[in-house]
């Protein structure tokens, strides 16, 4: 029993779930239990988007030092506009709009990889400069206007089954798929191997460049899908709809127990970290603290969780 507990605690993802549980308990103690279920329900619905971007960022970061996708927010913003424009408010064009968002995202992934591979620009710079270009495209394409989703698509993004958002169930299935992709396929193993030592991976016969290319494509595609879903959930596209997901995606990866230096990924922790961040916001909003205090507490708590998780690993 004791050894089981110790094994559980040595898992890097446990801390994010413990953190989520703790802030949720703090919030419901404050309200004397009122709204406990609603908080979880809202938490799940909002965590979906950061988990999707977290998966994208996790694959990229796992490729090893220097790999990060900073173009996700711009990608999400553009994809949200593309999806809503193609759907044009008509339920019959939902699939086409989702496809367009996916193509837009993959296109951005291709662009990112070309900058990194052809021009040999470090990924941080490449994806950051790409995001300026994407933003400009987005501004001239969407003219900053909010385009509404078709009623059917909007309904789909918010519908709940017994208090559990359908989108959250779908995303859990999706993340399970990505866990299999990461741990059980040649591609996933290649990502991990490259992250541990790209030269050794190359010598072992792994198609390093192809794997890197696919990873940036994957990140772009997930950003595109996330953009379309966000536009549905928030009832309208907007270019800065993805702004918060740059920091959120990286925070999720780190808090969720994935190694920032690459080579070690954790899918399970993404959900814990996603719920933790949303419920932390829920708790602070419920307490009604001012914006300044909220930022300070959020920062301190994130540092605390990372230190707690990291401290266990060092032993």
């Amino acid at each position: 029993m004791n050894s089981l507990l110790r094994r559980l605690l040595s898992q890097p993802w446990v801390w994010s779930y413990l953190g989520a549980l703790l802030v949720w308990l703090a919030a419901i103690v404050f309200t004397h239990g009122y709204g406990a279920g609603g908080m979880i329900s809202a938490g799940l619905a909002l965590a979906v988007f950061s988990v999707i971007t977290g998966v994208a960022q996790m694959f990229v970061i796992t490729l090893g030092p220097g790999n990060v996708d900073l173009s996700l927010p711009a990608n999400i913003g553009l994809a949200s506009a593309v999806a809503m424009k193609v759907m044009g408010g008509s339920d019959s064009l939902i699939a086409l709009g989702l496809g367009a968002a996916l193509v837009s995202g993959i296109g951005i992934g291709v662009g990112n990889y070309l900058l990194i591979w052809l021009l040999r620009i470090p990924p941080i710079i490449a994806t950051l400069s790409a995001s300026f270009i994407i933003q400009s495209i987005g501004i001239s394409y969407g003219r900053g206007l909010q385009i509404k989703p078709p009623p059917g698509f909007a309904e789909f993004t918010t519908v709940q089954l017994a208090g559990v958002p359908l989108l959250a169930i779908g995303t859990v299935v999706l993340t399970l798929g990505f866990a299999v992709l990461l741990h059980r396929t040649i591609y996933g193993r290649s990502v991990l191997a490259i992250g541990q030592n790209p030269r050794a991976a190359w010598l072992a016969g792994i198609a390093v460049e192809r794997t890197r290319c696919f990873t940036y494509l994957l990140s772009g595609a997930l950003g595109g899908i996330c953009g379309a879903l966000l536009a549905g959930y928030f009832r309208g596209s907007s270019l800065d709809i993805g702004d918060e997901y740059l920091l959120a995606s990286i925070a999720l990866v780190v808090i969720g127990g994935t190694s920032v230096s690459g080579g070690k990924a954790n899918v399970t922790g993404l959900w814990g970290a996603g719920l933790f961040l949303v419920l932390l916001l829920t708790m602070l909003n419920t307490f009604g603290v001012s914006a300044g205090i909220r930022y300070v507490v959020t920062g301190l708590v994130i540092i605390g969780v990372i230190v707690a998780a990291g401290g266990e690993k060092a032993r």
Partner: protein
Amino acid sequence: MNKTPCVAALLAAVTSVALIGSAHADTKSMRIAFSNNYAGNSWRQAMLKSYDIVTKKAVADGIVAAADVFTTADKEVPTQAAQIQNLILQGYNAIVINASSPDALNGAIKQATDAGIVVVSFDGIVTEPSAWRVVVDFKDYGKQEVVQLAKWVKGGNLLEIRGLAGTSIDDAIHSGIAEGVKEHPEFKIVNSVEGDWDQTTAQKAIATVLPSLPEIVGIVDQGGDGYGAAQAFAAAGRKEPTIIMGNRQDELEWWKEQKAKNGYTTWSASIAPGVSTLAFWVAQQILDGHKDIPHDLLVPYLSFDQDNFEAALATIPKGGVASHEYTLEEAKQAIANNLKH
């Protein structure tokens, strides 16, 4: 290197002539630049569009020589500071600015005014004393929200949505709302969340607090967040309270739907994006020799009620925001109103 004092001397000479003679300085050969730090949302797009319409005509009519718009790629202060320095070097006579920070740009603004350039800020204003500020009476706007609400809601719990933390606008509207609640003690603000004038942020923030909130009768906010508030209530399966709107097309459209369905009553107000055109005329008037224009100009906000919002809605582009473009005459009137008190 010695260009700056030269320009200053020239402008000083021009203005002293203007002040002595009854005839105004001619602005026909003068160039006005617009330094803008963001273009990514509907409000800013409407602001640019209004500015474009009015200044194109002003240039065509020969009132000014040029009215160029410069938008920075990001919302960062250093980028805009560098941009202002470029505008100084390019020799513009005036700079109209929507600033990324009320005080961080003051150094660059001071350089411009020292070089004799007229700087007029609006929306995102600058605190540098030598610059002009076109400010909307945000405090009254906040107070009116509660006053209007009290007309048809008997009283109860209110939820407040705040704007971008740390900005002067957020503080002003918030203090106005607080004053309104003081005058109408039948209302009680039970919680406040940060919506950043943004539908998505507001919806998300409300979704997180809604489970813990008692019955809410009204939402007092800062514009741009009303539609998101309605969506958050709908998503949680709760009846939407009376939400004060902020002149956005989607907000007014939603209001219209609700009004048709159940007679939903509310009030809508916001700073009109076309205030950019007022700032332009103020800059033109100062260049024209009207040095007596006060450095802080208070202008009214744009508001709609139950009877006239639908007419306004018809003129707003889909996804846009209600605007009002100032003519030179209206600008002169707005300036005159400030000279009175």
